[in-house]
């Protein structure tokens, strides 16, 4: 009835590839792409759960044979919308980050954020040597 276990292994691999991209790549856009791959893997997993071997599309008609379970497909339509929205938000943020930091590499972002003073003077670097609870290097983060 189910399309065979190898499908699950393959989809599992897709998910892991997505996650691996998120972990291994510093570039924010690549991270988002990895995230999308991960999501797509999950979506496919959902759909494969509803697949009935030899079943047709779930269209009710006279004399129709067995058909795949429609509910996962409906759900995944919603999930795809959610995924697209997430991707949109993420990309928009990436663009904003590039505009304000000049880079989308996460390691560099961290360094740039620490090195350059914040635009607002009140939040600028305030070094407190030997304060009882320690000092903070470079710029504040308020």
């Amino acid at each position, binding site marked *: 009835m189910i399309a065979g276990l190898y499908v699950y292994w393959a989809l599992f691999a897709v998910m892991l590839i997505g996650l691996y991209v*998120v972990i291994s790549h510093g570039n924010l856009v690549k991270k988002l792409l990895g995230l999308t791959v991960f999501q797509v893997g999950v979506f496919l997993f959902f759909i494969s759960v509803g697949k009935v071997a030899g079943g047709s599309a779930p269209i009710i008609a006279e004399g129709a044979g067995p058909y795949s379970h429609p509910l996962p497909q409906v759900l995944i339509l919603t999930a795809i919308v959610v995924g697209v929205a997430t991707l949109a938000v993420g990309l928009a943020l990436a663009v904003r980050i590039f505009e304000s930091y000049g880079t989308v590499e*996460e390691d560099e972002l961290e360094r740039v954020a620490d090195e350059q003073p914040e635009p607002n003077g009140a939040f600028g670097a305030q070094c407190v040597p030997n304060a009882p609870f320690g000092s*903070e290097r470079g710029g504040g*983060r308020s």
Partner: protein
Amino acid sequence: MSDVLLNPGLVLIVGAAGLPLLRGRAQQLYLLALPLLALALLVRLSFGERGRLSLFGLELVTIRLDALSFVFALAFLIAAVLAVIYSWHLRDATQHVSAVIYAGAATAALLAGDLITLFVFWELTAVASAVLIWARRSQASYRAGLRYLLIQALSGVLLLGGAVLQHSVEGHIRFELMALDNPAGWFVLLAFGIKGAFPFLHNWLQDSYPEATPTGTVWLSVYTTKLAVYALARGFAGTELLVWVGVAMTLFPVFYAVIENDLRRVLSYSLNNQIGFMIAGVGVGTELAINGAAAHAFAHIIYKALLFMAMGAVLHRVGTIKASELGGLHKSMPWTARFCIVGSASISAVPLLSGFVTKSMILAAVAEDGRWVAFALLLIASAGVVDHSGIKIPFFSFFAHDSGLRCREAPAGMLLAMGLAAALCIGIGLYPQPLYDLLPYAVEYVPYTASHVITQAQLVLFAAAAFSFLYRRGLYPPEIRSVNLDADVVYRRALPYGWHTASRAVERLRLTAGPPLRRRAASTWVATTGPLRPNGRLGTAWSTHLMVWCIVLLLGALILLTVR
């Protein structure tokens, strides 16, 4: 509820409030009326428990009158009457008020049927009696009183701790025979032991009693320790440990009494020694022994008060009580001397006097119990009593070499009180049956057998002969102005000295070892808290790799740990 007020002790405590309102003769009469009233109330009160109160769910029994508490209460109140007469000349409301409260609190503590009531009055005796020491109004008495109060308060705290423990373990706070198999018993025993001046816990007594006023010491000599004896007889009768504690108490003060110069301190050591006899009796715990302890306490209260009265009279008239300064006073104070001799003979257990008919009960009980080591040691201690109280007190103050001091005879009130006390000593000695009738158990003891009279007379008189032998050969230790170290050296000298030394050492250590230690601590602190700081490994904003790693690892860990 209203029968709470039937407490003779409460009569004294409440009545004391009226004293400062009166002046002169009216105050004296009122002062005398208070213990008489309490005495009348005590005699009219039937045996049994009354005055029940409920406090925070605890059942308090404020009055428990039975044969044991009655004997002690009777002695307490008679002594109060005598002490009031003795202090007839005194115009010091502070002393009167505190003395009457002290007597009342001690009496009420005797009657307490539960540990909480006992604790309340136990502490009240401590506070009220400390005022009697401070009333001497000297620097030495102030400090002695402070030490005294501190130790007495400690006893109270231990008692309260014991009460709480007993309540949590046994579920009640009744004051009954206690066992030493749980910590509550040990707490309470220690509390009683402090007030009863057990060896190494005794020094508050010799430290403070000689510093009190002449009249104050008379009051002090009556109550605190005898209250402890009563409490031990009630709570720990038949406890083996107490036999040996008692024997030790009879022995070691004897040596100190021989070399002590301050005669009231000699009496304090002697007091300690007499308490030892009673505690040994309590420890033996047979009917005869308890009877002996109670009877001896009764007689002891009278003759010890008499001795302190005599010494107080000397102090009152002469202004010093150092044996090295005194001598030959029998010419100036003949009656005081006579009464003092009666007291001394009583404490030495000379036949026909009160000590003879009571102490021998304890000795007989010890012998009857087959404890021959304890018996022999008590006999040796008895010989010692003959020395310090029987001979040293009257001899060095009233006889010995004439110091040349001349003064007037003691005031009439003092003489009357001493006379009454001496009469009681002789009366009990001659006709002990009424006292025996009061004792907790039926008495079949006959003091006046030929054998007993001969042995006791031999003991006393040969000891006296030894004294005259040694004294005339010049072998008796001379009276020397000195301070003799006792257990109090621990807290009066060693502890303060140790504290000073330790604090100096700490200061030095701070200066030498401080900076490197501080540097080390600071670097350790930075190393351990580093990750938590805003830019430390944990406190910083985590990168997305790290966060996703975390979630993946947590997922993996959870799957490994939980899914089976």
